[in-house]
């Protein structure tokens, strides 16, 4: 029976003031400002001016943008799903390996992500190019006569996305599986469950927090990573992130770019809301 002391707690909470103020200013105010901007009209140069309008949102409700939105969501969905399919078994096996092997695995998994994301994507660009190793291998094996067009396709973007996002699935699932009480699995086996049904009825539900966190962590960023489709995608791969990027830097339409961001923010909010509803916690999202 232990309870925290009162009294001294109040002054201690004040230590969180810098963090709260910083977040209020640079996250809270700036996001509110963007929401505000989205309701203005485009001004001269890189500015916004009255009158207030919902016109920016009206523009978004056009086939061009809706198609882009759909494409982004579809890509994010497949990215999250493929990350789960590839990452879950990996995390599961990693958690079941010997401690020494586990440390090595972890290191091998993390190190590539300490190098720049752009460079890793660049590696895929080499691999998938017409004269690159993949095509060379295919031709050498006689599987194809002429080089396949692998680069600058939606498939290439998906490969790049999954590649960029997979640690964000592996890490939360791993930390979940690692902390799991294996006697529960043994108990379910003891009660007559087959290995598969023990996995489905015990392991999966018990690692659900990790799976949920992994899905959110791979889904959300996939919508916004414009540089990936920039480098690997074709000219018709226009993801939401590219739209924002283009409006901002090419068309220099600040209010409209703001409106596009607000839509993305709302989507994100929805996903996080669903995640919370399903019992997810913020802490599960960092390791």
């Amino acid at each position: 029976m232990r309870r925290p002391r009162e009294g001294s707690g109040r002054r201690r909470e004040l230590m969180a003031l810098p963090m709260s103020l910083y977040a209020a200013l640079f996250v809270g105010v700036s996001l509110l400002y963007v929401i505000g901007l989205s309701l203005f009209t485009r001004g001269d140069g890189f500015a916004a001016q009255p009158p207030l309008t919902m016109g920016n949102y009206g523009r978004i409700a056009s086939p061009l943008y809706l198609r882009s939105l759909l494409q982004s969501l579809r890509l994010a969905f497949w990215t999250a799903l493929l990350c789960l399919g590839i990452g879950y078994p990996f995390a599961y096996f990693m958690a079941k390996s010997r401690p020494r092997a586990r440390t090595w695995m972890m290191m091998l998994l993390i190190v590539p992500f300490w190098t720049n994301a752009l460079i890793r994507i660049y590696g895929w660009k080499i691999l998938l190019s017409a004269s690159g190793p993949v095509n060379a291998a295919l031709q050498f094996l006689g599987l194809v006569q002429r080089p396949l067009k692998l680069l600058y396709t939606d498939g290439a973007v998906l490969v790049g996305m999954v590649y960029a996002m997979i640690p964000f699935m592996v890490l939360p699932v791993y930390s979940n599986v690692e902390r799991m009480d294996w006697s529960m699995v043994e108990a379910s086996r003891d009660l007559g469950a087959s290995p598969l049904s023990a996995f489905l009825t015990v392991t999966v539900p018990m690692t659900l927090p990790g799976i949920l966190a992994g899905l959110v962590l791979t889904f959300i960023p996939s919508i916004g990573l414009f540089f990936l489709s920039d480098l690997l995608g074709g000219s018709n791969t226009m993801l939401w992130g590219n739209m924002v990027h283009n409006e901002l830097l090419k068309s220099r339409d600040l209010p409209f770019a703001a409106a596009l961001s607000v839509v993305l923010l709302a989507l994100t909010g929805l996903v996080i809301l669903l995640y919370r509803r399903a019992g997810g916690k913020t802490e599960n999202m960092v390791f």
Partner: protein
Amino acid sequence: MKKNSRWASLYMALVLLLLYLPILVVVLFSFNANPGRTANFQFEGFSLQWYEDLFDPAAGYGAALSSSLVLAFWSVLLSAVIGTLGAIGLTRRRARKGLLARAGASALSAGEHLAMLPIMIPEIILAIALMALFSAIRLPFGMVTLVLSHVAFCVPYIYITVKGRLATLDPALEEAARDLGASPAKVLWTVTLPLAVPAIVSGCLLAFAMSMDDFVISFFVNGPQTTTLPLKVYSSVKVGVPPHVNALCSVMLAAAFLLVALGQLVSSGSLRRRRRAPVSG
């Protein structure tokens, strides 16, 4: 617990191979003698020419690296202070009585949630928000705006790691220190902070990696004089396929391996220390 089967090991090896394939290709091509600045990816012979290019000051990689390091240094330092203080302040809070106290407490909770947002929303949203904010308050784009932006997304990493560590500490440790005559400030300095150091270090390493790697946010808030390494790489890769990027990647990879090995050393040290800690009830 059953050991992994042969199939499991094979699967893991395959995934790791796929993970490293693009990197290996990049390293391999960094030694490629192919002189072409075109999108020609054929290996033609061994050469160190791209490394020479890379270290040529005119190429601008040195300047970009130093920008990135300065940026990461200040961002991590500031977020370490802000995040650690935040974690100490908000660990093990107590329900408040009274209207004003409760209002203050919920304001702090709101602040905590806001502070975590940068790592939960797509980077591009924060990027455009900060860009708009900075141009609205007429803050010139450059190192200052970069640091302010990076602190925003570095704080959550440090906050969450430190808070996680503090939450596992036996509350009796701080009480014991008070009981033995330490003022609240001394308790922080002699007990809480030293015990949080391993978590602060690993949070800082994480934040450092994130800052060094960040492209999206830097892309929108950088100034003409502050091209960071990721920005430099992007512009090089975007224009053509300059082979010295391969050399750069290999150098960064080597550095990353070194840093991670270092990090492992630190965290295994902290692990050992943690294992020695008495089990708290």
